[in-house]
């Protein structure tokens, strides 16, 4: 089972596996000859697993002492995921019943498919180790790594999502790609790698048109490589003199630098370059040559948050080796060079890189040429832009770069800049901005080849969510077996009255504001997520039950309010190996566990097992019960706690000794209410009071609920009729 939300094991998504280990119940690890050795040969990383002991080596100790195969499987799964590049840590294995051989094992995974595959391979691996059969660990790791690369969030997106996590901002992945919703409901924002929902499509269009970008930038005083299209070699020379030598001559529509000649200063060279460019494009442009290094500056919301510099790559000839050989021995040996996103620098493969071929051709070489001893050969003019220089950027450059993004209209952009020294003003050095890119890659700044990584994910999160905004809307969770749907509907109605756009998922279906969107039983993960994805919803009320928590986990990570009416119903959970109330408690407590520190647990004071959850709550506990003389309520109030109860037919909202009467005018007749039970009113009043609704509004809402409820429903399906099981 993939538990997608907070669950009985942990707050985060896990895969829960039921294992029947059969004969292995009698065969703990130390009884299997050579097993541990084979296992650790294949997976030396297991030595780092802490397990119960709490320090590296803990798990090895357990293997030596003898531990059961389910537990071993758990560690193997986690290790395989780690080897595949997925960061996880949590795993737990519990026997369902002493001596039964049946275990529930849960392990953290960031992707269900990867998790399932890792599990399958872990089983194969463990069995191979048991049976002393060969196992191709390398192939498995490659397979899993490929899956991680294609199925998990890319590095740019994950750095943003991780930063959101650090700010306690929830996220929902909307596709298998990199489209992610941050926050919930009406407070949500979306990102798609380094694009945000504020990234303008028109701005992207502008940035993709280099000439348009250049002309807009230059109109606003941002230095760009000035240039002009020329018709003839003579005109090219004239224009070059106007622009100032040296110049670049290139075809307007060329690619990979074909037909580009740079740093031209003489008439002869310029005329030659014109002819060359003409071969490779329909029109030829002469541009001022900008001396310096290529820089990439990342701008987020009007600030430069990271900057990196490129460096040219050279080899030195020895009179024997070819350029390709020199590249391999002098450049590709660098440990930072490799293939794929994890390496800050690419391996240089001259045959695959037209730009390098052209650079060599300009020097009169190709990859097979053998330069003389001591001769320096330029391989890449601007190699990978990967040397962090964030702290060096001059304020004048920052100002111009930010202006460039504003002119184009992008909130997040990677600005390419050519300048000799980024720590000095741009214009006096003759530097220029050459490109403004939408959806820039963040990896350069996360994994620079030289220098510190920059917290660009955090910068994007602060841009999307100003300080203190966590993108959260109020979430009210309700669980138990007694009138939970009724409570949910009443709270939804009260919140609507207070002006919220309310989403409600309960047994009776899914509701958006007044509208019933689905009549299907909606106590499940998907229904809850559906509400949280809705961009208009400003508050949600989600009913849940033990079964849903066991099967899928909660549909939200944290809640504002958790209401628990009781912990009944163990008898219906036999399929989950649950038979005792204490086990139900362990399931239901998840609700209270996820209450935010500024949230509330609304607990039925009459149920001792529910009362047992009070210490688990990070937020405030509010008790409810008809009688104020209940010992739990008296004690809670003595400690300045909050409680809701009935006195002489009136609902009292109490905080320590302070009391508010909900039905001050006495118009709310509890006992006459045709629909609502007393506990429903108390729980709902407690929840909405906790959320800051004024008592008058709560009272008015309770009074009008019945009428509203009747009108919102098709005839013949009253709450009463539905309530009967």
């Amino acid at each position, binding site marked *: 089972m993939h538990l997608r939300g907070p669950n009985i094991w942990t707050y985060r998504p896990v895969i829960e596996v039921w294992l029947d280990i059969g004969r292995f119940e009698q065969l703990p690890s130390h009884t299997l000859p050579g097993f541990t050795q084979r296992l650790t040969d294949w997976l030396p990383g297991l030595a780092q697993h802490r397990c119960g002991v709490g320090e590296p080596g803990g798990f090895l100790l357990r293997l030596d002492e003898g531990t059961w195969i389910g537990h071993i499987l758990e560690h193997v799964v986690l290790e395989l995921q780690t080897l595949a590049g997925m960061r996880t840590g949590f795993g737990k294995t519990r026997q369902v019943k002493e001596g039964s051989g049946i275990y529930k094992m849960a392990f953290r995974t960031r992707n269900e498919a990867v998790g399932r595959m890792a599990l399958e391979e872990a089983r194969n691996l463990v069995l191979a180790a048991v049976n002393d059969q060969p196992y191709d660990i390398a192939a498995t790791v490659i397979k899993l790594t490929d899956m991680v690369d294609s199925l998990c969030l890319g590095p740019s997106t994950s750095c943003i999502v991780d930063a959101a996590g650090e700010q306690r901002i929830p996220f929902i992945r909307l596709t298998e790609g990199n489209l992610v919703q941050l926050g919930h409901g009406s407070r949500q924002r979306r990102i798609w790698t380094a694009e945000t929902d504020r990234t303008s499509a028109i701005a992207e269009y502008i940035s993709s048109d280099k000439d348009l970008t250049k002309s807009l930038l230059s109109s606003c005083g941002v230095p760009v490589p000035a240039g002009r299209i020329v018709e003839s070699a003579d005109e090219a020379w004239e224009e070059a003199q106007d622009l100032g030598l040296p110049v670049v001559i290139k075809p307007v529509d060329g690619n990979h630098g074909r037909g580009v000649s740079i740093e031209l200063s003489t008439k002869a060279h310029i005329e030659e370059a014109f002819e060359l460019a003409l071969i490779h494009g329909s029109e030829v442009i002469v541009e001022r040559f900008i001396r310096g290094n290529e820089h990439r500056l990342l701008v987020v919301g009007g600030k430069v948050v990271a900057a990196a510099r490129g460096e040219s790559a050279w080899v030195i000839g020895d009179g024997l080796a070819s350029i390709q050989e020199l590249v391999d021995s002098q450049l590709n040996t660098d440990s930072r060079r490799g293939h794929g996103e994890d390496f800050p620098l690419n391996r240089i493969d001259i045959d695959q890189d037209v730009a390098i071929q052209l650079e060599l051709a300009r020097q009169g070489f190709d990859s097979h040429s053998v330069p003389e001893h001591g001769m320096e050969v330029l391989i890449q003019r601007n190699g990978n832009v990967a040397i962090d220089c964030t702290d060096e950027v001059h304020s004048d450059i920052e100002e111009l770069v930010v202006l460039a993004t504003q002119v184009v*209209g992008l909130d997040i952009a990677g600005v390419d800049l050519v300048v000799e020294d980024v720590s000095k003003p741009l214009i006096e050095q003759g530097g220029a901005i050459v490109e403004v890119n939408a959806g820039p890659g963040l990896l350069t700044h996360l994994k620079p080849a030289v220098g510190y990584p920059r917290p660009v994910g955090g910068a994007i999160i602060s841009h999307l969510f100003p300080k203190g905004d966590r993108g959260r809307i109020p979430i009210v969770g309700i669980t138990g077996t007694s009138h939970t749907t009724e409570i949910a509907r009443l709270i939804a109605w009260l919140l609507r009255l207070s002006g919220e756009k309310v989403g409600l998922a309960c047994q009776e279906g899914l509701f*958006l504001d007044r509208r019933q969107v689905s009549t299907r039983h909606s106590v499940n993960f998907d229904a809850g997520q559906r509400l949280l994805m*809705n961009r208009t919803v400003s508050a949600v009320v989600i009913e849940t039950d033990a079964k849903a928590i066991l099967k899928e986990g909660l549909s939200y990570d944290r809640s504002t309010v958790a209401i628990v009416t009781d912990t009944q119903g163990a008898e219906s959970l036999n399929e989950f190996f649950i038979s005792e109330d204490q086990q139900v408690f362990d399931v239901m407590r998840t609700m209270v566990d996820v209450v935010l520190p500024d949230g509330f647990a609304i607990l039925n004071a009459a149920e001792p097992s529910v009362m047992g959850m009070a210490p688990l709550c990070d937020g405030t506990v509010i008790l409810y019960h008809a009688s104020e003389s209940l010992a739990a309520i008296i004690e809670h109030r003595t400690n300045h706690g909050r409680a809701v109860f009935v006195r002489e037919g009136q609902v009292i909202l109490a905080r320590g000794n302070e009391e508010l009467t909900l039905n001050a005018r006495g118009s709310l007749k509890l006992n006459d209410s045709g629909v609502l039970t007393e506990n429903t009113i108390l729980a709902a009043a407690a929840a909405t009071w906790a959320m800051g609704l004024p008592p008058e509004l709560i009272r008015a809402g309770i009074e009008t609920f019945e009428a509203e409820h009747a009108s919102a429903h098709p005839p013949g399906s009253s709450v009463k009729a539905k309530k009967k099981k």
Partner: protein
Amino acid sequence: MEISKTRALRGPNLWSRHTSLEVIVNCDEAEQDISSIAHFEERIRNRFPQLANLQSRQLPRPVTVAHVLELAMLGLQAQAGCPVTFSRTQVTNEPGTYQVIVEYSEEPVGKMALASAEALIRAALNDTAFNLEDVLSNLRELDEDVRLGPSTGAIVHAAAARGIPFRRLTSGSLVQFGWGSRQRRIQAAEMDCTSAISESIAQDKELTKRLLEAAGVPVPTGRPVRDAEDAWAAALEIGLPVVVKPQDGNQGKGVTVNIDDREPLEIAYSVASEFRDDVMVEKYLAGHDFRLLVVGDKLVAAARREPPMVVGNGKQTIRELVEQVNADPRRGTGHATSLTKIRLDEIATAQLAMQGFTADSVPDKGARVVLRNNANLSTGGTATDVTDDVHPELAARAVDAAHMVGLDVCGVDVICDTVLKPLEAQGGGIVEVNAAPGLRMHLSPSFGKGRDVGAAIIGNLFPEGEDGRIPVVAVTGTNGKTTTVRLIAHLLGASGLRVGMTNTDGVYVNGRQIDSGDCAGPKSARNVLLNPTVDAAVFETARGGILREGLAFDRCQVGVVTNIGSGDHLGLNYISSVEDLAVLKRVVVQNISPDGMAVLNAADPIVVPMAENCPGKVTFFALDRHLPVMAAHRARGKPVVYVEEGAVIAEEGTRKYAIPLKNIPVTREGAIGFQLQNVMAAVAAVWAVNSDWYSISQGLFTFRAEQHNVPGRFNFFDYKGATVIADYGHNPDAMKALVEAVEALPAQRRSVVISGAGDRRDDDIRDQTRILGAAFDHVLLYQDACQRGRVDGEVIALLREGLEGATRTTTIEEIRGEFVAIDMALQGLQAGDLCLILVDQVEEALAHIAQRVKASDSGNTH
């Protein structure tokens, strides 16, 4: 006939507010009276019968070829469908030379019309052929090509109706509305706030469907299925009828629709699985295609769309039926009409084949034969407006859909029987949402009422009452413009605005110089209006730019005319008198917005009458509030600015603000008269934008006309105890002002260094020294670096002539080279002397003086 110059006047100009071509035409003697050219009129009318009547009484006598060119350019554009009406031919002071001004709606079309009109006239003169039909169709084609498409056009039109300025940023449909920091952009029906992510979502049909479903919007739900068994299970979950199709399939291959039983479903599954392994079962939606247009949170238009089709009559072939339909005069070929001709092309043939027809089949009477699978207007479909029929619940779902995807302008495709009922009540659904939807079907539907969707989009970009304009102050006049512009910019900046400024020294945005050189023309001003960081703009508006291109803006909030005096640069570009110059500079005043303000110099009799031409209010300024113009204006409770009791006073009705001159350092406590003029003009201008008097007075206090601030404008130096003043004055009025200012300063001996610019009239050059001769003891004449067309020594001779009979001057020296002259003047100075240096190469000369001052050891500048 010879055309010596063509200019595109891209903004309000000397002749009109219309964008126009101005052509300088030289006619030989015969061409100055067409009646003297045998058969000319007859020949030209034969070639272009629609040419306006040349015998019209509106035309002067004799009618010249220039006039014919004018009428031909206008007539050709009109015949090609361009909405142009303005034209004029102006006789110049050069015999046989005319200025022909003809409006254009698109510059390239105007230029082509000019070339065509010229060809027409030559054809008539030489009695050669002229193919009118070709010419007109070329013009039409070019016009269709370059003008805005119907969607963008409708939005731009709506903006214009609300007084929102616009500017095309590309030859495509990217348009900027408003200016500076208040600007917005659109590209067709896409706004600058339209999110790229939302557009990507809209392009992903499955993702869109999932999101819409989450939002409770009815969509054809479905899921991938494993096998025929699972397909039936899925069909039951979804509810019959269903569609079975290959996932990501295209062009309807392998798709079976409207399946309502198990057996056909199984067949459909096997058909679909032949095309792809992944098969989908989806809810089948029946009904019409509707397109709902959502803008912001409102449904603004809805249309029912039908694919191109013909209805059989049992007699004619499909080909004949299509021809019949295409005979409808409303069906055109481009985007301009509400219907487009149906094409019987490959796609149509394939579509026919799927229905078992060829183009030559004869369908039964009443049979509907669809010729294309989509209902786009551009391929011959039809659209019927149903906006008023849409049920509010249905409209709400369309808005939900747009909102969920995140599109602020969104075309929502709906399939249902009728829009009169909610979708849920009829099993309808939303099948697609489109970013940047076409608007043509709503603007000019084939049937029903057109909807002003452009206005809805503009309303979304600019809330009621906002027009995207930032305050624009245009400053013109003969002298003091640059300082006034700098002062105004400084004062606006002091109130917290980010100011863009253009003047003869460059372009400045928020204090940063982004361009240098003479930037007092419209190009630089347009750049400032484009800059997203500019909250207010101040433009020096020189004559050259107005003549060359017109104004950079359609109207400004404040127009300042510092003075006209006796003018400058007279004799150039057919501006030969002070009156001509006044008419030209008046263009600024004429194009002040109705709620704007003209700031006019009440002491200048040529400036005062411009008040009559101002669509907005007028503030007069003058030192003396008792001038009749000032007194009358003040008596009527209108705003005036003057100087009284050592303070600059701004007064309007009962409101009165005073700023003591001692707190305005640039005037040297009022001693420098022309700076007082500049201060009054600037105060009046800023007052019209923002009457925060605290920031105005603070700004005046912090403004110093030092070298770094206004180079070449009365820059003070202290050289060995003598006062040296450098200035770039170069016309008689400037001389007068300088003399006045210099006389207010105490000094023992006074000397002046001057050269004359060769491009002035002889009289104007003489006048300069005539004025100086009354105020300076010693005059050093030097030869200008650039003689601007004069022979060597000619200018110096004129300057000398001006000094004949000078009342004060006792010594005159002639020197070659500006720096030599400066050095010589400095050498002769003693403590307490005063030397005015009229610099020519401003930057170099100032640097030179500064260096000398520094070397003299007493190097403090004020």
